[in-house]
């Protein structure tokens, strides 16, 4: 195996190719998570992956690690139970925006209050992908979805404020900014206490298509155009990506 492909060691290769749509951002995040673990020389035993339900919720099952696919919204209490029962384990969560902020929102509030030493990677595609493209808690104002045909009237959740209010690690990146996203995940994994990485990601099939994007490349380019890296502020503006420790 060539050096660049060694991250594949962290995946169950007999389960590839994955079943996500061509152009979906989920695969990019899967690879980034593997690269971060490789960078930090994580052992496959000793690391546990947890996901909730959704397209992104399928992530856990692809890792060549012990992994748990929880009920919808329940990844965090399960992950906390694992960590607190065996503090030696590295416990990572990869799940969706609907799963973590919608149905599981109360758990996020309290997991961050408890500052449990786990790393959460949110594949934040601003949509309920798996169920066909309904509005999610991160859907932008006036954005059109299956359930907001005249545009979303509710303000998206301020994840940064929620996580940083409890002095936890918060990072935001996108599936376009690969090096930056990798840095965010790597630092999050090294952080002691709860760390949260929100990765803006594209769902072409059940979101982008409905908003006039021709393909996922166009969605990635919109991340390139929208988000600027901010390396030295304690608050990220809505069009900035960075790390708040």
């Amino acid at each position: 195996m060539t050096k660049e492909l060694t991250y594949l060691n962290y995946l169950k290769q007999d389960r590839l190719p994955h079943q996500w749509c061509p152009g979906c951002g989920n695969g990019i995040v899967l690879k980034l998570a593997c690269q971060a673990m490789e960078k930090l020389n994580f052992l496959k035993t000793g690391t546990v992956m947890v996901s909730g339900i959704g397209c992104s919720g399928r992530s856990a099952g692809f890792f060549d690690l012990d992994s748990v696919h929880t009920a919808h919204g329940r990844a965090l209490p399960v992950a906390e139970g694992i960590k607190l029962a065996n503090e030696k384990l590295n416990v990572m969560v990869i799940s969706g925006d609907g799963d973590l902020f919608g149905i599981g929102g109360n758990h996020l509030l309290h997991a961050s209050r408890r500052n449990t030493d786990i790393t959460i990677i949110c594949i934040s595609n601003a949509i309920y992908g798996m169920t066909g493209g309904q509005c999610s808690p991160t859907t932008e104002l006036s954005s059109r979805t299956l359930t907001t045909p005249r545009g979303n009237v509710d303000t998206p959740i301020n994840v940064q404020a929620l996580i940083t209010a409890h002095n936890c690690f918060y990072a935001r990146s996108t599936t376009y900014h690969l090096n930056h996203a990798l840095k965010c995940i790597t630092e999050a994994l090294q952080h002691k206490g709860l760390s949260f990485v929100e990765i803006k990601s594209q769902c072409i099939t059940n979101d982008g298509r409905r908003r006039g994007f021709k393909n996922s490349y166009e969605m990635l380019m919109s991340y390139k155009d929208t988000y600027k890296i901010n390396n030295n502020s304690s608050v990220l503006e809505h069009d900035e990506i960075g790390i708040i420790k």
Partner: protein
Amino acid sequence: MTKKLLQGNQAIALAAVKAGLNFFAGYPITPASEILHELVNQKTVKVLQMEDEIASVNAIIGSSLAGAKSMTATSGPGFSLMQESIGHAHMMEVPLVIVNVQRVGPSTGMPTFPAQGDIMQCKYGSHGDYFPIVFYPNSVAELYEFTFHAFNAAEESLSPVILLSDSYVSHLYETIEEADYPVSNRTLAPLGTSNRHFTGLTHKDSRPVTSDPGVHKKLIKHLETKQKKVSRKYNNYEYIENKYSDILLITYGALSRAVYDLKEDFAIYRPVRIFPMVDKIKNIAKKYKEIVVMEMNAGQYVNEIERLLHREVNFIPILGGKIDLNEIWTKLRRIKKKR
């Protein structure tokens, strides 16, 4: 063996510690809170007070998979919240003990009064097919003993076992002998040692298989067979024969204690493992012309009994948390007369 005056809930907590409990997560609720209160003082148990019962049951799913013998305790409203995850734990084959100290429902009902309204919820509360093992003791000594059995059955069956109680039995104080019952060890390897995938999706060999009915049928059959096999070790029931009566009273939990007073006039059968139902009742029932099920709900176990016995069964509901023997007598006289 030492004798001790214990409250029912306290007995559950102390027995759980002896049965190997390492991890407890719960949310306060009357009449179950004393279990949480007792456990926070135990040095060998990690105790978490979570944000709700959904978080509690999910935290113990995580802790159990990570290798800790785990338990939660609640009452009807919390038990309702846990249902989705109970089905999930059956599907992922996670050993858990879930204590449900029943109170009068539906909804917030009468929080301090006993009821037996969660019998069906134990068996059918989650969606899909699953085959829970459920124990329902009727004294402090039995709560103590069956806490051990619940932990052992959970380990042996790799499933969430329900220990039912009610606010009456759980709040009783009785002197019991603190016996040491045998303890089953963990067989499931803890998380972090392999590359298994635990999922609530229909699965085979750690892989989701979501469009093959054959795989699903096999999985459900496996769950059913396993539960039946393990439950055979716990055929617990009480039968008080009465050669002079042709009426058999079926009762359990708090109510059964009052019904003991009628044993001069009637035979009494009391299941302790209420699910899967103990088959023995089929033979016992044959000896009696009339079967009367009494329970503190509007008719739950009676339907299961009728289904098992394939015959008509009389029913006396006791509602509102108060057990009145006069009321029971009046109804029993009517049944006697009808014959």
